[in-house]
């Protein structure tokens, strides 16, 4: 895992992490509770506008494409061409290809949901410093030890890549030939062992370091990071959550027969 946070001063960057999370939960709620294409498209439009406001639409689009493309291709092939739920309406036909409308619409629905989910997550992560996110979550009851592990995990990739570079440098300096494709792949074998052993060997020292820095000390804790919050945001968060609950309740009561 590695942080994808990109620093900025947009309104979205400045929102309290929990406000963003509440918004994200509502979007997810819409995606999965209201399977109406128009509503989902509207929700997606809202997320897209937010991304534009935050100044990161390109980043969100690129990253979501990388994540979703393989999935989407297989989805359309399978649902649209091979195994449509029902073969009632043909969307179009060529001598060697038939697209069925039902399958296509189903795939489109799934696509919208997946896009909502990934765009939402990416937008929150890109506009929120991981430390702020964890601090906010700890504020609503996330255990500190879990928060610590999350933050360590984020720094793990740069740490491991620095280790891997150093190990490779040492091995090459001791005559290990890593030039050429096959040799490079083969040189991964002597790399992986020391990489893992090295990281594990540090665990006890890390535990000692945490003790030294009073991580397990009794008494109340304070935080350096101050999360800007406002009355309006607090009200908005509660509002968003009420809408979400209402949506879920409605889905299984009033709207039950309609959808």
């Amino acid at each position: 895992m590695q942080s994808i946070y990109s620093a900025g001063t947009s309104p979205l960057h400045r929102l309290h992490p929990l406000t963003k999370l509440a918004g994200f939960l509502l979007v997810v709620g819409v995606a999965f509770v209201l399977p109406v294409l128009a509503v989902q498209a509207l929700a997606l439009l809202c997320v897209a506008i937010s991304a534009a406001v935050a100044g990161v639409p390109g980043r969100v689009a690129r990253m979501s494409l990388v994540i979703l493309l393989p999935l989407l291709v297989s989805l359309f092939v399978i649902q649209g061409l091979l195994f449509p739920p029902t073969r009632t309406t043909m969307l179009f036909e060529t001598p060697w290809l038939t697209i069925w409308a039902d399958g296509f619409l189903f795939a489109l629905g799934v696509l919208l949901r997946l896009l909502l989910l990934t765009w939402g997550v990416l937008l929150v992560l890109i506009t929120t410093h991981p430390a702020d996110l964890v601090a906010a979550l700890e504020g609503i009851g996330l255990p500190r030890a879990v928060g610590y592990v999350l933050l360590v995990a984020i720094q793990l990739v740069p740490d491991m890549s620095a280790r891997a570079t150093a190990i490779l440098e040492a091995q090459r300096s001791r005559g290990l030939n890593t030039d050429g494709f096959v040799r490079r792949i083969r040189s991964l074998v002597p790399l992986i062992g020391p990489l893992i052993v090295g990281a594990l060997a540090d665990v006890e020292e890390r535990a000692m370091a945490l003790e030294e820095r009073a991580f397990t000390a009794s008494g109340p804790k304070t935080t350096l990071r101050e999360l800007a919050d406002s009355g309006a945001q607090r009200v908005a968060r509660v509002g968003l959550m009420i809408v979400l609950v209402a949506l879920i309740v409605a889905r299984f009561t009033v709207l039950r027969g309609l959808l």
Partner: protein
Amino acid sequence: MSAISLRDITFTYVEAARPALSNLSLDVPQGQIIGVVGAAGAGKTTLCALCAGFVPNFYQGDFSGVAIVDGQNVVEQQVADLVRHVGLVSSDAFSQISGARFTVFEEVAFGLENLGVPRAEMIERVEWALQVTHLQDLRDRSPYALSGGQQQRLVIAATLAMRPPVLVLDEPTAQLDPHTTEQLADLLRELTHNGTTILFAEQRLEWAAELAERIAVLHEGRIVTEGAPQDVFTDTRLLDLGIGWPRPTLLALHARDAGLWPRERPLPVTTKGLLEGLSATKDERRRTDVGQIEDRDVHPLPAHPLTRLPAHEAIVHVEHVRFAYPGGVEALRGVSLAIEAGERVALVGPNGAGKSTLVRHLNGLLKPSAGQVRVADLDTRTATVARCARHVGIVFQNIRNQLFARTVRDELRFGPRNLGYSAAQIESLVDHSLDALGLRDVADTHPYDLPLPLRRLVAIAAVLAMDTEVLVLDEPTAGLDTAAVARLTALIHDLAAQGKSVVVVSHDLDFCYEALQRIVLVKDGMIHLDSAWDALTSDQRALLDETVTLPIAIRAGLPRSFA
């Protein structure tokens, strides 16, 4: 009342054959600064861990005795509750970074958050800690993007910010450059004036002698002697125990034998004492008009500054090399250097001068952006690192990522095996290297089960076993005890006698002076000075003094044979 009171402590780690501490008693009054010295394995780190409450409740084992630190019984209290009373800075800075904070500033605040210090006070304390450790300019950097010395300062800052009444430091200077080392001594002295009690373990005896009010000598888990530095560091038992004396004391001893230090005057333990004593001698001689002492103790200066022998063919040619990292930082800006057979070269310079970048050019790990590096008959731009490694062996500064075998012996086999030596040759090279660094006893141990200083020797032995024409050592003495440093010095002289070249990157100028014959100063990506030690001009000495300090022997104006 004593801030640290240890009574009859005996402690044996689980599965250890003999106790790490035995029948140890020690009292440290509040506000005192005490230095603990001893050879590797004497129990210094265990004593530090005990005083900080990590023994016996974190590192478990068989414990007896009574340990009271800042009024708290170490055995009865949990480590978590002792942190309000005592702070520990361990010797390995890297592993003490929390890993959960993204900037230096936040890392220093981490401990205060855990102690529940109010935010405004927290910021104030962090600012102070960064200021006294000279880290203000690095406050927004990631802790992992710092050099070893900077990480060491960071961990010290993080501990100081917690304001422990008792501060324990285990080899705090191992990775610091000379100027930073002096700054740390000033800082610690100031803390004791404000009532902090400090116990530190240290290999640099000179530093300990300057700083400590009291010295305790540890040997096999026992305190063999303790007292004022002046008394302890002139005790001949220290020589017998392999701990040695501080350099000023040894230099004065040689000076006494040469008639430059009166027999009746006690030997000094600090550089200041040495310099004052020598100048007093000089004044007395001048007054009594005895002899031409002036001529004898002034450093012999040859007429020409460069006394290198041009007869030898250089093995490594670095020619007008420039190198810029992908980020655009130009680390080398036109460096030329030739290393001849049998030369012993010191590469010195402040942190970030480009020394490590230069070292990585010597075997082609980095390729010059402009200019050329030739190793034997190879151009590093076209030859593989593996081929260059036949000629140049490099031991890197960070020991952590250089060892990858299951036993020390396998570790040593790795290099020669890659170079294609026969099985018999490999075994002979490995045996030779094990003996050269005194590692025979640990040959079958897993490298990670060894303490860091021994791991450093293993890393050196592993490169030595490749039998290259050039051996490059990056900070080889960090954390080594006197005996290991002496072994290393002997090894370097042996290699040179066999016609092999040694290049050492080091902050330890005294070691460079004793073990090496040529000095190269790198600063801002350029070579500012390249000379034999014996041919330094007074301008060059001044430049060295300003950038990296001078060896004590040169400062004292004593002949090279004394060092």
